[in-house]
């Protein structure tokens, strides 16, 4: 029999496309089923106002797996960068912004002590996050599997930590579970600088700077490369991935939402589309988040009790909203030089500002003065807006998915809060707005079919990482149903536009089931 095993990939997000491409290159017959009219999942470029396009959810590229880019030759398939090495601009009501280029301060009022501290902070961050990045591309070892190979993988991790050297290892173990607030207070003077650095620990998460786990999320964010803007928005990246997948022989069907993953006895039979069409497969690989895949598409009844409960209890309520503005002209942000308007702009002036923005989220309320990560991608990428006009894309924290008051009621109020914050930073901005879109986590959940509207398909935390991701006992991409795999951000190493989960899943699938 030369008939290759038939694989269905549920969902054409970046990880699904990457996984499909790797499987097809290994000779599998692969069909990708995407519910939306275009592939890309949450890494897409959408028109939100006539003539204005924007990266709909993820808006900066900085974690992309370089192996994926190389193996799939994404450049050949059309991926271009509009700009690379974006600087970070920490804006303040009070005075000029601080502009950071990696570890260096290139503008702003920063003491020499802070400048030195920043260099050391970055040195450590780079060293520790490199350790983390090394784990990304590995299939996590199971605990107590009894397998030498997996024990060896765990030993490798221990050795990596030991190789940091005595001082840094101690520091790593001290820092790893700390909160970013304490770390920044220990090391820096400038409130504005501290706010800018803290944002990395809380973006996309149900965490404030004082929450535990925020050093880990900061390290995670630092495990990538510098911030880049794909030419044509994030959709250009996933288009290139789709192109690479097709070139490898993958068949992609869009507007084909999967209604159910079907079983025959204790084995995968295939999928049933929402239209009722049944498609048989030997393997089903789901790019959907773990809850959607296991509880909704498969059904908890086909899972064992403890496993189903773990999936049910997975933490993954989105807390970041996305604001898109169509602007008739380039806005002016106070204290920001015109040459820096295309960079990564932050409204997070102090640690307390971010913490205060987080406080309401604990009680299922949205921030009234949110923290923002803003990009105006049209500065570098003219394809996104009509000539002379611009698009602004902002990640807005905090906006709990399960808002107590309900988003239908509160969305307008929240939108006004965000615009007020923006207007204060860029007086006159409201007058430039010709189109607007606010995506709450609930909108993200509905439009992008992600449980809880969480970018990472589940909170990124030490207790939901590596072999514990998505849940203990399922850290190796194979789910406890024969023939079912996960390949999305809900798996190790998690979210952000990386493609590593898809690549790892393909590796796990190709090496076959393990005892």
């Amino acid at each position, binding site marked *: 029999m030369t008939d290759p095993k038939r694989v269905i990939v549920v969902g054409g997000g970046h990880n699904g496309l990457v996984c499909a491409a790797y499987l097809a290159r290994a000779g599998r017959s692969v069909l990708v089923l995407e519910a939306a009219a275009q592939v890309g999942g949450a890494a897409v470029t959408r028109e939100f106002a006539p003539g204005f396009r924007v990266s709909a959810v993820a808006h900066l590229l900085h974690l992309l797996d370089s192996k994926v880019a190389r193996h799939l030759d994404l450049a050949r398939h059309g991926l271009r960068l509009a700009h690379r090495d974006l600087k970070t601009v920490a804006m303040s009501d009070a005075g000029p912004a601080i502009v950071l280029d990696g570890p260096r301060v290139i503008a702003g009022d920063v003491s020499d002590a802070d400048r030195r501290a920043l260099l050391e902070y970055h040195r450590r961050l780079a060293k520790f996050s490199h350790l983390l990045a090394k784990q990304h591309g590995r299939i996590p070892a199971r605990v107590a599997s009894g397998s030498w190979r997996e024990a060896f993988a765990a030993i490798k991790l221990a050795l990596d930590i030991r190789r940091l050297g005595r001082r840094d290892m101690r520091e790593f173990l001290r820092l790893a579970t700390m909160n970013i607030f304490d770390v920044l207070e220990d090391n820096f003077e400038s409130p504005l600088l501290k706010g800018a650095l803290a944002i990395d620990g809380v973006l996309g998460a149900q965490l404030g700077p004082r929450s535990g786990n925020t050093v880990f999320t900061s390290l995670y964010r630092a495990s990538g490369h510098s911030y880049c803007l794909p030419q044509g928005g994030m959709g250009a990246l996933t288009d290139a991935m789709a192109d690479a997948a097709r070139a490898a022989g993958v068949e992609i069907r869009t507007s084909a939402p999967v209604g159910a993953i079907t*079983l025959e*006895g*204790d084995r995968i039979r295939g999928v049933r589309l929402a239209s009722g069409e049944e498609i048989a497969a030997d393997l089903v690989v789901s790019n959907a988040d773990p809850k959607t895949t296991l*509880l909704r598409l498969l*059904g*908890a*009844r*086909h*899972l*064992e*009790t*403890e*496993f*189903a*409960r773990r999936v*049910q209890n997975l933490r993954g309520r989105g807390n970041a909203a996305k604001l898109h503005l169509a602007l008739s002209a380039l806005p002016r942000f106070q204290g920001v030089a015109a040459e820096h308007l295309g960079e990564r702009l932050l409204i997070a002036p102090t640690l307390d500002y971010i913490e205060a923005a987080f406080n309401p989220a604990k009680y299922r309320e949205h921030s009234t003065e949110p923290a923002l990560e803003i990009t105006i991608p049209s500065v570098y990428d003219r394809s996104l807006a009509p000539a002379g006009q611009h698009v602004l894309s902002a990640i807005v924290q905090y906006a709990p998915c399960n808002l107590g008051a309900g988003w239908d009621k509160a969305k307008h109020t929240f939108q006004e809060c965000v615009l007020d914050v923006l207007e204060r930073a860029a007086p006159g901005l409201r007058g430039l707005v010709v189109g607007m879109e606010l995506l709450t986590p609930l909108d993200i959940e509905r439009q992008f079919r992600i449980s809880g509207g969480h970018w990472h398909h589940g909170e990124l935390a030490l207790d939901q990482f590596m072999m514990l991701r998505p849940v203990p*006992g399922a850290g190796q991409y194979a789910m*406890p149903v024969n023939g079912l795999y996960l390949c999305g951000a809900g798996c190790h190493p998690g979210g952000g536009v990386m493609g590593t989960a898809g690549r790892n899943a393909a590796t796990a699938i190709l090496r076959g089931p393990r*005892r």
Partner: protein
Amino acid sequence: MKLDRQHFRTAVYQTPFHPRTAPLNVLNLWHRWRDYTTADGYFDVGMEYNALRNACAVFDLSPMTKHLITGADALAFMNRLVTRDVAKIKPGRVGYAVWCNDAGQVIDDGTIFHLRDNVFRLCSQERQLDWLHASALGLDVAIAEESDDVAALAFQGPTSCAVLKKLGLAGIEMLKPFGLRVFTFAGTELLVSRTGFTGDLGYELWIAPGHALELWDRLFEAGRNYGIRPMGTLALEMSRIEAGFIAALVDFLPADRAVRTDRTRSPFELDLARMVDLDKPNFTGRRALLEEQRRGSRYRLVRLDIEGNKVAKDAFIYDARRNVVGTVTSAMWSPAAKASIALASLEMPWGRPGDELFAEIYYQKELKWSRITERCRVVEGAFYDPPRRRQTPAPDL
């Protein structure tokens, strides 16, 4: 009987039968079973046991944990919960079952009453509400804790059928083992099942608590000339070991209570392979049990007939080369089998029929401890298994 907000002020409850059991308990022997006080013995444990094996005996079963499971997915739920195929337990039938965690380790055992379509009652030793709710995820079922809402008596022994007939339960002799039937009694529903924990002919009677005393009185009235006696936990325990049945917290540790992973047991390791249907596409523990079947089990539960007359309580079991291969979990001198008998958990591969095994028994006479090593024989099935247990029509002498 709904718990009121002051329920915590009462540490231990009395069962609906307490007004009758209390005066009969001349030994004043009680222990706490769940939230209820329960008689260990009434007048003479040996005589209570004799009543059970030779006439009939009544055991207050009310503290038993009971859950009512209803809904369109009730059968699917039961099948996901337990290791056996519940579709084979038809409406009007009862089945013994065990359930496991994901690791295939036994959480508890109990009986499933298939009352009618989509309605099951699950009786168990341990509280299970949290586990049942967890197991209901994604299924259309309602789970009600009804332990306090149903009063129950175990009525067991060779004259039990005759007494029930005299009580007016017409046709009771035709009720098959593991069958259940609803009778009208004192203007209410009396559920009778031919089940029990004694390995003898016997029944369990289930009724609303408000009618409990009337049931007790009329049962004792009907049994007056049939040797009816109340029976406590100690006599029941004797009959349970003779029947070869296992008990939670005695012969196995409920998996949800275990801290040490090697202390739990799978159904295979409790000699319950017949209760496991791996052809069912999904139930909790299935994947682990398939794996155990492939790799082999760690332990084997055996029934041992031990030479001599010493009770092998807590004895170590040795092989012929004096290696410890296991321990006794339940032991007694069996009046019915006229033998020292025990249940024991042995390391694999020990416990095959014909294996040479020895029990090291410690015993004392007048405070002087002695030790003896006795040869053991692996017995298949119950130690005491009277034919009346299975006969239909049941003997109604």
